């Protein structure tokens, strides 16, 4: 799953670079131009992909052992 999450992030970068929606004349919901809608979906999908990365690819042992101060 860890690799799937990272593959998703890479895929989103590739999809971001795709030029096929650039000339779309469609209007989503009657007011969102096609290319803007496409990139809005990319933004939302990015958040979804980061949920997977954070859940399955979060590095272990990041918190230093008992610093003795600061945490409140």
């Amino acid at each position, binding site marked *: 799953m860890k690799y799937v999450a990272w593959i998703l992030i890479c895929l989103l970068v590739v999809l971001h670079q795709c030029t096929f929606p650039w000339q779309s004349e469609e209007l989503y919901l009657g007011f969102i131009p096609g290319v803007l809608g496409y990139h809005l979906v990319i933004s939302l999908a*990015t958040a979804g992909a980061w*949920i997977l990365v954070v859940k399955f690819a979060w590095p272990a042992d990041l918190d230093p052992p008992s610093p003795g101060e600061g*945490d409140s």
Partner: protein
Amino acid sequence: MTPLAIIIGYLVLLLLCGTLANRFSRRTAKDYMLASHSIGPVLLLLSLFGTTMTAFALVGSTGKSFQWGVGVYALMASSSGIIHSLCFFLVGVKIWSIGRKNGYTTQVEYFRQRLESRNFGTLLFVVLVLLVIPYLLIGILGGGAVIHGITDIVPDWLGSLMICAVVLTYVFIGGMRGTAWANAFQTVIFMVLGLVAFLVIANELGGGEGIWAGLVAATRQVQEAHPEKLTMGPPVFKSLFFMSYLLIPLSAAMFPHIFQHWLTARSAGTFKLPIIVHPIFIAIVWVPCVLVGTWATSALMANGEPLIPPDLKSVNLVLPMMVAKLSGPVLSGLLAAGILAAVMSSLDSQFLCLGTMFTNDIVLEIKGREHYSDRQVVLLARLFIIGIVVVTYLISLMKPPGIFDLAIWCFTGFTGLVPLVVASLYWKKLTRAGAYASLLVTVGSWIYFFSMAGYPPDLKYKFLEMLPVATIFLLSTTALVVVSLLTRPPSDQTLALFFPSGKDKRAGS
């Protein structure tokens, strides 16, 4: 007078925020500079977002969309959603972990120890300060212009002075805790007010027949008058140029003020919320602004004249003009507060960061930490912050031309330094000489391309059909790798501080 009253009320609220934060202060240098590593996920999300989004997110995005259409969202926003979170995850979380363990406060401190070089840290300090100052000027000049534009009675210089005084006061009394609180408050303000302005504008463009009807009517008007603004293509949008823009948001990985914000986190897990939600926040702010800017190209007044003159030179005025023409003074005042919120939520972190770096990396480094008490350290940081604010404000009075176009060049410089921070975290073979080579190549190539673009900078300047940042990034990476492979890496003792056992294989590969 109504907009001015709203702006003043807003500035007073910010001062109260700083005062309140001061009550929770632990009166130590660590608390002043890093809020004692006590910042939780929501506050970290809001302060990181507020810091990375400058006034450009509101007024710049609207202005650029007026010029280039909806493609601006793809060019600058959806890419930032992916790349900023990537920086937080791959760089921020690791920096926090190492910084917390080794007790760092600034980027310079981190690199000094990682590369076993005091001089490299000093050179990096100079480069970082030079890259941050234009960024500060953009905020100060932009804030003054907004206050003048909306109130019409407060001159630019006084507006800039008001902003400097307010930011200085709450940073001065609240330190990092006050900055984080004020950032969070301001982020909420500029997100909410941006949305309100969007809905009011949509409603007015639809002739008052409701928001939904307004949204549809406004876009249809663009479809009829300027259909090219609803699509992407040459001459502005070309594949290589578009691809090179992906490197601009990477600069966040080397912003010294973001570095300091990362270190304020309570735990590594605190980063999870900002990593996930940051792209959504970007969409919430940018989509409405991009639509308003695009609508402005085709919106007409009752007499059939364009609402915004098509030949408008200062495109940053598009949003304030749309609000002023389509709503009353109350919304104009609120929008001004929202724009100022975006300006100040970046300025405060930058002021605090420069004060911290000067105190920590220059004064304490030269004279020795043992010579200063915590109170003196805080006092020094405050004095340097005042000095920086005064100098930047005085420069702003000279109104340097083309300063707003310098933003992209600041980001370019920071992106050129990104290979350095990535290699320092993930590559054991990074050497001091490799770091010097990367830094000097970045500075040298930056100066070359900047001189080629002319001054004020030509934003259409490209090299090999791409933004110069692509070449600078490639040259910097090559110099770092080649020179590092030819020279001796830091001692095992130093590397052990950055690549703890158990992770060595993964981190050093």
